[in-house]
């Protein structure tokens, strides 16, 4: 199934370098579009750097995790997993300066609930959000389509949870040397919790992540599953693939180790502030431009609407919202 999925065909990248290059390109493109008049040397005084963008994304990934954990009614983990995939995919090709991650994050979770058939109404959903719920639900419903489009309508996600179950059953039947494989669970969950905070989900297949989780759990119990993997799981025919798999498992585990490094709180606050200033007002529900446009739409004043849209284009072409400089 996975080899013929949209995930495998369109959303698996070759390396972290490739991903970072794509994100840098996204960053540059945004700045070129919105900061034409900013001198090259000063652009990052105002705009976020690619590293700052990544830090912001990471910050909201942590929020995403906590939001899902605290969700009521309790959320199945494949919903969380799917939301993570959406969020990460979205920010490969979109700048956090264009679409604020706090808004995209909840939209990802909302869309994931639907696709994974975890039935919650929008009302139930936003009751998990503090603050103005009506506004939150408007933001989510307005962003839903944008998100789908940016995902290229590739909505079906393959998470590692099912392959994990498959492997556990297989270990129970074919790996007698390990007593009570259920003991692996805490270690597995520990790795899977973290793997979603890394780029691994854009680089490795669900079954590779599942195996990494199993091996991580085994090594925590000081059990050795090497011969199960090399002899039972792969057998003689699979030798060629084994190499690749070991490399993948190693890669996943080292990325997961890195996931523990939390960004500095004060630094994050500064970046948040910077983003508040440089985020695209067109897509900021609190900006004047946005409010005017909404008002115009509500009043069905096409003319006003067009005027605002046109003056917007001019703004885009000059230096948008540059008062901060």
């Amino acid at each position: 199934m996975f080899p013929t999925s949209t995930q495998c065909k369109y959303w698996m990248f070759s390396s972290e370098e490739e991903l970072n290059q794509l994100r840098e390109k996204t960053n540059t493109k945004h700045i070129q579009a919105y900061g034409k008049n900013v001198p090259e040397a000063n652009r990052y005084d105002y705009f976020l750097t690619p590293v700052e963008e990544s830090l912001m994304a990471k910050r909201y990934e942590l929020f995403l995790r906590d939001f899902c954990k605290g969700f009521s009614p309790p959320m199945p983990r494949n919903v969380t997993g799917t939301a993570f995939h959406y969020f990460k995919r979205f920010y490969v090709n979109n700048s956090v300066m264009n679409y604020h991650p706090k808004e995209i994050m909840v939209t990802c979770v909302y869309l994931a609930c639907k696709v994974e058939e975890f039935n919650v109404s929008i009302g139930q959903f936003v009751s998990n959000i503090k603050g103005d719920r009506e506004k939150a639900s408007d933001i989510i419903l307005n962003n839903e389509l944008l998100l789908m489009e940016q995902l290229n309508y590739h909505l079906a996600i393959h998470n590692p949870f099912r392959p994990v179950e498959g492997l556990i059953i297989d270990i129970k039947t074919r790996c007698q040397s390990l007593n009570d494989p259920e003991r692996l669970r805490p270690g597995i969950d520990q790795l899977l919790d973290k793997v979603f905070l890394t780029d691994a989900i854009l680089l490795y297949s669900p079954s590779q992540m599942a195996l990494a989780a199993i091996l991580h759990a085994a090594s925590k119990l000081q059990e050795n599953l090497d011969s199960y993997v090399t002899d039972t799981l792969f057998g003689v025919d699979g030798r060629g693939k084994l190499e690749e798999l070991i490399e993948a498992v190693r890669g996943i585990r080292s990325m997961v180790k890195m996931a523990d490094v939390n960004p500095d709180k004060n630094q994050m606050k500064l970046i948040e502030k910077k983003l508040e200033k440089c985020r695209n007002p067109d897509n900021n529900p609190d900006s004047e431009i946005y409010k005017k446009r909404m008002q115009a739409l509500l009043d069905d004043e096409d003319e006003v609407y067009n005027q605002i849209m046109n003056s917007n284009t001019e703004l885009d072409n000059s230096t948008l919202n540059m008062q901060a400089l």
Partner: protein
Amino acid sequence: MLNEITHTKSRHFAYRMELVKNSNNYEEMHIIGTGAYGMVYKARDKTSNKMVALKKVKVPLTDDGIPLNTLREIALLKQLDVHEHPNIVRLLDICHGQRLEKELIMFLVFEHLEYDLSMYLEKRSMRNFLEKEIRQMSKEILCGVEFLHSHRIIHRDLKPQNILVTTEGRIKLADFGLAKTYDFDMRLTKVVVTLWYRAPEVLLELSYATPVDIWSVGCIIAELYSLKPLFSGNSEVDQLNRIFRVLGKPLQSEWPKENMSIRYDSFEILDKVDLKDVVPNLSENGYNLIMSMLTFDPMKRNCAFKALQHDYFTEEPLNC
């Protein structure tokens, strides 16, 4: 942190916005098809200059946004396309048009094919197809159906208008998924849905599954030979009447027990005809294949996978 999402109070704002790029990448040329649920336009992809077919569908919006069914179907269509099956029309893109309070217009962008099978048949009404052409087309239709069924998709509306044909005579199935699950209200036009390819269980409004497609294929293969629809009824009862004329009326014991609006005794078949008389030039194997697809009882009907293994497809064609 989540109060940050809503940290400024502002008045309730409009539930519609054009935040995202829309179908402007395509230049509409003219309407090529009007079905019950959608309009299909021929259009030019401005970037690649290629011709595409834009299918406009109306998606109902609920309080919860885009309906779950639509999401799942879109995901499925995208997923299917990864296989690039030779007998399924390519879905190139999806984009959306206007978003209104209660509905959203979406465009499904397909590769453009020269004909649909009904046009292709019309074009040929003067000269019959060669036996080997018919076999090839039948096989490709069944291959497409087999692919859909193996992915647990029921087409539900197989008919010549929904089967596309390239200039080289290759077959590609179209018009499955999405628009099909919507109810009457979501129709864009008043086009009457044809009954001619409907299986008895559909006409009788019973529950149905993949066999309904096999029935349709049976009707279509027959039509490839005779160049006219096998059963062209103008109401459910009339359609069943025509079916029973050829197949014979089912036994009372075969008649479904479920709550029925159409009663067993409303049919009296006096002028029974044989499929061989309605469809001339049929080989014995061709006859057997079609009959295996046209059983009243869906459980006894052939399936796509087995049908493809029928001797009909391997025997030396008789008259070509």
